[in-house]
């Protein structure tokens, strides 16, 4: 079965006054139709950059190399016209920070019908509006709120509007970038439920990005953990969460309480230190300065992804099955 | 305790000064301003006081409308007076009124802003009402009306400009005070038993002073331009020469038709340069004091 999305050796470099800064350093993964991949890591590890890179949404001044195959076509080498056509119809993004992702002076329904009308996925405007109202209903927003402006909705409602908006043109792939981060636990659960429901109903492929590992196990089959611009562990989500083999994953898993598990809330273990500066990465394994299990050999070279369990890989020389 | 705080404050100002000098706009502004300040102070050394006395000028045999080629360095006017003298002494008035009026503006504006923001409640609403009113009313007609009623003098001019310009400062300072009030260190100070005045002096003032300083330097251009306009319209003190008055006399006595460019150009150029200088200084200060503005460049 051909993969829906195939990312090969994706590298993103920013050009700054201090020189070149690598935000993503050779990321590769595949996603089958209907599959869901969770992408976890602290802020600054490059996950949002990678998400934006898939649809070439990075600002000017960035260099992207590698391959991003959507079906058979490479997004990175598409002509501008084809790229614009593929955006939102092939893959759509649910951005984080819903208040800023919505145009404050445009009604919610118009923001959903905009891509429909642009890509002509409905025959006319009326049909587009009907579809928009349908989508809002599916994410739990009543029809009488469709004409509202973003500031009139609550944070959770705005986030759900973003989801409805992302589904407007029935994309094959949905990339959700931190969709629940700014929300409180109750609303978080609601939004996750909506996403799971939609995924099941539409056979939607999904990439779910967050820094909260526990959230990912609900929605995703597979999990990948990023650190300093690279994937450092991946595998089936339950397995990676319950049996993390990379020290960073272990720390991440312990740092966040599981939804519904009171005991884990009482004992979060924060990671000490700060994420590394992408412009000045430590020698060898970039995690070794903060790693509780680090040994001398860790300073020598950056370990590649090696098998660390059934269908599980980790970029750590100490992680062996 | 006080020694440490004092040192830190001085260090901060040294840092500000250094950052200021590094910015090209700041440097240019200061250099231009320095030139005119020196000119104004050294007026008796570089120019004579005969500028206001046509009788003396006639007695000295100066021609009417003398070009700079005939009578250096800036020629003479309709009354045979030296334009250069008027220019040099005029700089004094423009700078003096500009600074004094701005000082008054900032004084009233900051006082109102701090009190209004800090005390809050009904006093705040009342003061803001008054401020709003001043902001809507067109300031020049107001200044004209006040000047016409109060009479022509330098003091009145300073008062009129100060009185019509304080509202925008008040509003700016008030919003800054409101932001500061929400910060915990103010609450902590109060819970420790600090009286209102103490809190204002120790915590509010130091954090607002940077903003006030930047605002002052930006208020000077407005004061100078207002003074120039009021003098041009005939509301200045007839005894003292200011750049605005020079322009008025030039215009009224037909310097335009006669092409007597040496009469109406220098005063205008002087105003533009001084205003530019203060604007550059003010903008540079503003960028240093409010780091958010740095991205705007």
């Amino acid at each position, binding site marked *: 079965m051909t993969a829906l999305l195939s990312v090969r050796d994706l590298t993103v470099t920013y050009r700054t006054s201090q020189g070149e800064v690598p935000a993503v350093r050779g990321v590769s993964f595949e996603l089958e139709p209907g599959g869901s991949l969770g992408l976890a890591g602290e802020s600054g590890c490059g996950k949002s950059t990678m998400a934006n890179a898939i649809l070439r949404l990075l600002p000017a001044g960035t260099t992207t190399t590698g391959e991003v195959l959507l079906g058979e076509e490479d997004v990175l080498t598409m002509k501008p016209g084809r790229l614009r056509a593929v955006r939102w119809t092939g893959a759509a993004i649910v951005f984080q920070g819903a208040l800023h992702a919505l145009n404050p002076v*445009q009604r919610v329904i118009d923001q959903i019908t905009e891509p429909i009308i642009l890509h002509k996925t409905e025959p006319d405007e009326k049909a587009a509006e009907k579809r928009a109202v349908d989508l809002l209903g599916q994410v739990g927003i009543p029809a009488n709120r469709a004409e509202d402006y973003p500031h009139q909705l609550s944070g959770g409602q705005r986030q759900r509007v973003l989801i409805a908006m992302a589904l407007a043109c029935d994309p094959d792939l949905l990339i959700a970038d931190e969709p629940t981060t700014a929300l409180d636990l109750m609303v978080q659960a609601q939004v996750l439920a909506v996403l799971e429901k939609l995924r099941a109903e539409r056979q939607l492929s999904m990439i779910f990005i967050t820094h909260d590992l526990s959230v990912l196990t609900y929605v995703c089959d597979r999990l990948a953990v990023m650190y300093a611009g690279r994937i450092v562990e991946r595998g089936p989500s339950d397995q990676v969460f319950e049996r993390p083999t990379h020290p960073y994953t272990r720390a991440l898993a312990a740092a966040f309480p599981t939804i519904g598990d009171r005991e884990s809330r009482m004992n979060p273990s924060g990671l000490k230190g700060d994420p590394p500066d992408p412009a000045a990465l430590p020698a060898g394994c970039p995690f070794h300065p903060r790693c509780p299990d680090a040994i001398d050999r860790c300073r020598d070279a950056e370990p590649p992804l090696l098998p660390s369990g059934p269908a599980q890989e980790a970029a750590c020389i100490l992680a062996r099955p | 305790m006080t020694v440490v705080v004092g040192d830190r404050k001085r260090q901060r100002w040294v840092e500000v000064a250094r950052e200021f000098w590094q910015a090209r706009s700041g440097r240019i502004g200061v250099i231009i301003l320095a030139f005119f300040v020196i000119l104004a102070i050294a007026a008796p050394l570089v120019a004579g006081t005969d500028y206001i006395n046509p009788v003396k000028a006639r007695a000295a045999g100066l021609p009417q409308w003398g070009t700079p080629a005939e009578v250096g360095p800036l020629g003479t006017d309709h009354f045979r007076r030296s334009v250069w003298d008027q220019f040099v002494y005029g700089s004094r008035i423009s700078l003096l009124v500009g600074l004094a009026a701005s000082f008054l503006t900032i004084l009233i504006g900051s006082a109102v802003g701090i009190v209004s923001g800090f005390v809050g409640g009904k006093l705040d609403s009342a003061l803001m009402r008054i401020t709003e009113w001043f902001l*809507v009313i067109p300031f020049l007609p107001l200044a004209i009306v006040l000047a016409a009623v109060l009479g022509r003098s330098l003091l009145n001019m300073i008062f009129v400009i100060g009185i019509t310009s304080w509202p925008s400062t008040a509003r700016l300072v008030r919003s800054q005070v409101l932001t500061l009030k929400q910060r915990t260190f103010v609450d902590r100070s109060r819970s420790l038993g600090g009286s209102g005045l103490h809190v204002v002096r120790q915590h509010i003032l130091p954090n607002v002073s940077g903003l006030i300083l930047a605002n002052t330097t930006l208020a000077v251009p407005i004061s100078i331009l207002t003074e120039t306009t009021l003098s041009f319209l005939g509301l200045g003190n007839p005894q003292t020469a200011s750049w605005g008055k020079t322009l008025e006399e030039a215009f009224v006595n037909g310097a335009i038709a006669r092409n007597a460019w040496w009469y109406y150009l220098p005063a205008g150029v002087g105003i533009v340069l001084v205003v530019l200088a203060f604007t550059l200084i003010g903008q540079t200060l503003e960028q240093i004091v409010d780091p958010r503005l740095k991205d705007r460049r």
Partner: protein
Amino acid sequence: MNARFAIGKVAGALVTLGFVLVFNFFLFRVVQTDPVATLFRGRNIPQERLDQLRAEFGLDKPLGGQFVDYLQQTAQLNLGLSYQSRQPVWNEIKSKIPATVALVGTSAVLSAVIGTALGVAAAWRRGTKTDYSITTSTMLFYSMPDFWLGMLLLVGGAIITGIFPVGGIIDAGSSRAGIGRLLDQAHHIALPALTLTLAYLGEYAIVARSSLLETMKEDYLVVARAKGLRDIKVRNRHALPNALLPVVTLSAINFGFVLSGAIAVETVFSWPGLGKATSDAIRGPDLPMLQGLFLLFSAAVILFNLIADLVYGRLDPRVRT
């Protein structure tokens, strides 16, 4: 739009106007202790006649009564007699309104449109030579006294090159009518309008530029691109409507400045409007005229502020709900 919002704004405007009336009354009562004597100074009039006139003018009443008289008279547009012409102030003012409306109207519109366009252009090409030259030249014009700029343009445009007339609104002794007259007036308005426009477009350029720079950082622009919109559409449909909101607010404030600027500029160009009337009234001092003109200027600015507030409410949904 919310009716409560509109009513609130109108009420506010009326209150402000009320304060202007009070201020006007008391300011001039402070100076004009005996208007009758001032009005008829230089004329040989017996004392009883003066007393009789005082009673006629209601000057023997207490201050409160005089204020009520003042309000009634103002409502009936009885603004007193001009010292200089002995004609009713309102008649003098009325005849000069059209000339100033033409000049200030043209200049206010031109400065807004050109200034904003320059600001947008500067922001879009931020950091380039275009940006730099626009920002420095607008700052330069802004630093000039408006009437001095007028004098320079007068010299350059009329005295030296003879392209434009030296002053007035029509050629003296001209008996043209209809289109010919209109063209003549347009010919005369060119230089003063150019002066006011150049002097006051600076603020628009600065505000438009910085507002657009702020808006360009917003996330919803990335979302618009992600939907597949072309860059131009993103700018025109999403960036500009948000970025130009502060310009609307500015137009209210700037109108006051342009109107005030007309006072000195009309004088330089002998433009027979309210500005020149003010300048002439200062020479007296013709206090009734100044009082009437101040009232009119204030009312005009208050009205314009009200219109701008209501327009802004229409454009920015966050304000009116």
